[in-house]
């Protein structure tokens, strides 16, 4: 299989879809890697490093497009003014992997469909835990968040950290981060590391812990409304909420020196959160970095792609934050790509597998047929929580330029588990001893018992039942020690319900077809046992429904 890496044609795009290190891994895995000459120049990866990693350098982009089975790039292919498209050389049946944003670029998707090729959009990879290693949006957002702080520091005329010097006191810079997705969290971590006082605002209360864990202060408005939207993104909020939010921002505007906005709502223009009057309230020399600039910007004064000075405040609207750190961005993007190719079967088993939920989610075109948007994913939520956990430190891992709720929820600190201890060995020993005694007695009876007490069918059955009984006691013993102490009451009510199994006895007794004393008693037994079953299970359900974090 031939994998082609083309040079990005957009001016100022420094990234490339594969770094020499990832090329090395791909070649080892059996890929033939074609790299357009100078493709890595912007990221400080000269051609010779690609060659050393096992790639073949190809002179022109056209050659890569036409000969590769899989073409990988970073930016969406460009529609040129003369009506041609960057991807016009793509062969039918080949695959293109890149950022695509199909919702925003319908013409491009239509154009690509003519190629009868497969198109995989890395921005459409579903946000499930298994897909984290493929999640290029997060890798890029992480870089953007970091870079936002660096750019802000560059324009800001003072220290981030507070200093007491012989020449006087310098207060620490105050940084406000709006939107604590991956980019926001990365920005919080970076600003904190430089010594600033960091505050962060997000409409999703669930991110408060993440903000605090990075040393930020969580700001919120006291209105009961969660901004938790689908797939971990934020949703649009009510007017009442927005008013309260604006009041909070105005109060902050007078205090903070740096504002970094990262708020995105999927499928909509970025919400305007930092208004002109807030910029006017800020001290001259302050800096606003708008990471949502590409989608219209969170700040009213943002000029996408530029840094402008308005009312003495620098408003940075660069849309190429990740690209400004091309070296590391290419490396991380290349790693995401490597995992994606691996997910698609690698060089040997490469195929478009519609059963694979990562591939299915990211697949925009299959042989020119539109496959986007994908059917809604199966329930993935719990999984996401689980696995994001480990990632948090690196975490400032970040959402697209969007506020992404990757919710690295802390596991319930194993509350109670450790204390649930094992069965104390003393008691276990006692149980063993009793069982041993009984077994020995049974054996003696069977072996040396008098001949006039022959082993009847009943005795054998009794022994069988006894075996089952002892084993069940052991299983119960093992299982119940693991029950969290906080759940002891539900445990009691559920075991209560389960012991209603005695209903089986009532059912058998009451089903002889007659209605005499025996049956009537059995029916009464059934009645009591059923009350127990229904009452026990339902009350347990009620109780368990109340336990929440």
């Amino acid at each position, binding site marked *: 299989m031939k994998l082609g890496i083309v040079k990005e044609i957009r001016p100022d795009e420094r990234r490339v879809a594969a770094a020499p290190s990832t090329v090395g891994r791909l070649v080892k895995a059996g890929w033939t890697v074609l790299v357009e000459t100078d493709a890595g120049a912007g990221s400080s990866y000269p051609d010779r490093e690609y060659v050393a990693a096992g790639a073949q350098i190809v002179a022109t982009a056209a050659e890569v497009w036409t000969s590769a089975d899989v073409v990988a790039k970073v930016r969406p292919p460009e529609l040129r003014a003369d009506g041609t498209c960057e991807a016009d050389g793509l062969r039918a049946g080949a695959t293109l992997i890149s950022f695509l944003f199909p919702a925003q670029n319908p013409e491009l998707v239509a154009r690509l469909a003519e190629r009868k090729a497969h198109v995989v959009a890395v921005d459409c990879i579903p946000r499930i835990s298994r897909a984290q290693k493929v999640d290029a949006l997060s890798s890029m957002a992480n870089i953007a968040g970091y870079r936002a702080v660096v750019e802000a520091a560059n324009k800001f005329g003072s220290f981030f950290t507070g200093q007491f010097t012989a020449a006087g006191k310098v207060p620490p810079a105050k940084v406000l981060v709006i939107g604590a997705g991956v980019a926001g969290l990365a920005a919080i971590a970076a600003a904190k590391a430089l010594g600033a006082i960091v505050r962060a605002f997000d409409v999703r209360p669930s991110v408060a812990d993440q903000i605090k864990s990075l040393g930020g202060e969580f700001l919120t408005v006291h209105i009961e409304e969660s901004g938790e939207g689908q797939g971990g993104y934020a949703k649009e909020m009510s007017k009442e909420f927005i008013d309260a939010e604006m009041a909070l921002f105005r109060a902050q505007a007078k205090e903070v020196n740096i504002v970094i906005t990262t708020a995105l709502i999927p499928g909509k223009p970025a919400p305007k959160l930092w208004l002109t009057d807030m910029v006017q309230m800020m001290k001259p020399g302050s800096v606003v970095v708008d990471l949502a600039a590409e989608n219209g910007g969170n700040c009213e004064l943002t000029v996408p792609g530029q840094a402008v000075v308005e009312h003495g405040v620098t408003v940075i609207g660069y849309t190429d934050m990740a690209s400004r750190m091309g070296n590391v961005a290419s490396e991380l993007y290349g790693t995401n790509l490597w995992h994606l190719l691996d997910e698609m079967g690698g060089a040997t088993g490469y195929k478009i597998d519609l059963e694979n939920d990562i591939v299915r989610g990211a697949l925009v075109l299959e042989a020119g047929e539109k496959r986007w948007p994908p059917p809604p994913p199966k329930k993935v939520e719990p999984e996401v929580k689980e696995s994001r956990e480990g990632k948090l430190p690196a975490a400032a891992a970040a959402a697209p330029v969007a506020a992404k709720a990757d919710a690295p929820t802390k596991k*319930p600190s194993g*509350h109670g*588990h450790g*204390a*649930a201890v094992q069965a104390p060995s003393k008691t276990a020993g006692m149980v063993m001893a009793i069982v041993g005694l009984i077994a020995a007695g049974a054996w003696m009876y069977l072996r040396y018992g008098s001949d006039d007490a022959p082993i009847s069918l009943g*005795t054998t059955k009794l022994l069988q039942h006894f075996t*089952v*009984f002892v084993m069940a*006691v052991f*299983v*119960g*013993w093992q299982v119940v020690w*693991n*029950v969290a*102490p*906080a*759940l*002891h*009451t*539900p445990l*009691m009510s559920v*075991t*209560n*319900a*389960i*012991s209603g*199994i*005695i*209903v*089986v*006895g*009532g*059912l*058998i*007794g*009451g*089903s002889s077809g*007659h209605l005499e004393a*025996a049956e009537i008693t*059995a*029916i009464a*037994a*059934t*009645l009591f046992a*059923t*009350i*127990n*079953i*229904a*009452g*026990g299970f*339902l009350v*347990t*359900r*009620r*109780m368990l*429904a*109340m*336990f929440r*974090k």
Partner: protein
Amino acid sequence: METLRSEALSDVAYLTAAVLFILSLRGLSSQETARRGNLYGIIGMAIAIVATLTTTIGGASLDPHPILLAAIGGGAVLGALMAARVGMTQMPELVALLHSFVGVAAVLVGYSLELHGDGPGDLKTRIEIYIDVLIGALTFTGSILAFLKLRGSVSGRPTLLPMRHWFNLAMLVGSVGLGVLYAREGELWALAGGTAIACVLGVHLVAAIGGADMPVVVSMLNSYSGWTASAAGFMLDNDLLIVTGALVGSSGAILSYIMCRAMNRSIWNVIFGGFGAEPAKPAAGAPAAPQGEVADIDHETLATKLLEAKSVVIVPGYGMAVARAQHAVRELTEILRGHDKLVRFAIHPVAGRLPGHMNVLLAEANVPYDIVLEMDEINADLPSTDVVIVIGANDIVNPAAEDDPTSPIAGMPVLQVWKSKLVVVNKRSRATGYAGIDNPLFYKPVTKMLFGDARQAIEKVVTVLRTR
């Protein structure tokens, strides 16, 4: 052939049900999986009932009487109503009542088998019936009394008959004698006599146990109800009953053991000891009256202290349950957390009248479970805690357990609240706790008393805090 196939089918169904029950208990190991665990239990039970109704026994298929089916429906409705109506503070009563149902069902199943046709022919079945009925009857009356005690219809004080150990022994001997008679001769009156003795024994055992030991009693009855089901399984040659009963029985036994360990007492001491009354006797000579002065605190001051504090620990006890103060406590928690205070709950294993009682109440009031900690988890943090609020708890925070070897609760692990910077104890009155012993905590210099009903007291503090 048909019969064999049907029996094999029901065996498979029973095995499935048993596995589901095990998974159900396993699910309770954490809050996340607990709901699924309960669901497994429900599915297992449904499988067991359907399998039983469709099976054939000894070649004849079951012919359920319409009244039986009506009983199932009626029982389910009754049970559902009870479950829907019960308040979380009444949970202990409900659990005790449900235990009694298992007991009475077991007794009835045993009698049904005895009354059926010519009665059981062989010795083995009669022995099994006798054991099943006895354990069932004991569970039944014991649970009923526990239910009445928990409801407050009967005094929680232990009733100790003179020579009660001999009385117990006599009843034991009597029931064994009647059992032999019944097993050999198949005399119905002997079975009835045994049942009567077991009923009295059940009442007597529970009557001797004091209020503070109720968690142990309830979990022991839980265990008994399991053994009852197991005995019924032997009687009916039904492995599912045996397995399920054994699971429940060991679960209850473990709970009882955990409770006893939390009070540093042996299980025998709880069952036969009549704890709570004996220590009162020496106390009758020495004045059990409060020794020392207590310092009061008012709501305003407490609110100020709370606002000054960085970390707050709340220790709830049975008093919180009685006063239904859990919602007020949650409000307090929210306000304090809003002020960025570290608020946590410390739960002693025997707080309340049921294992895990406090956790359920706090969960009902929407207190997040990750700030509700156990004794072992929080004790080390108490010295660095600024304010501890004890709400309606007494014995579980009594320093005498550690300092005073002559104290009846000596050696019982307690929450070391007195090591913190300020302890505020909310109590209705100056009376002693269930163990009937004085609490030196109240006279310590770090302790301030907030007298009054728990809910009103906390609500007042909340009101003050809202204005600040």
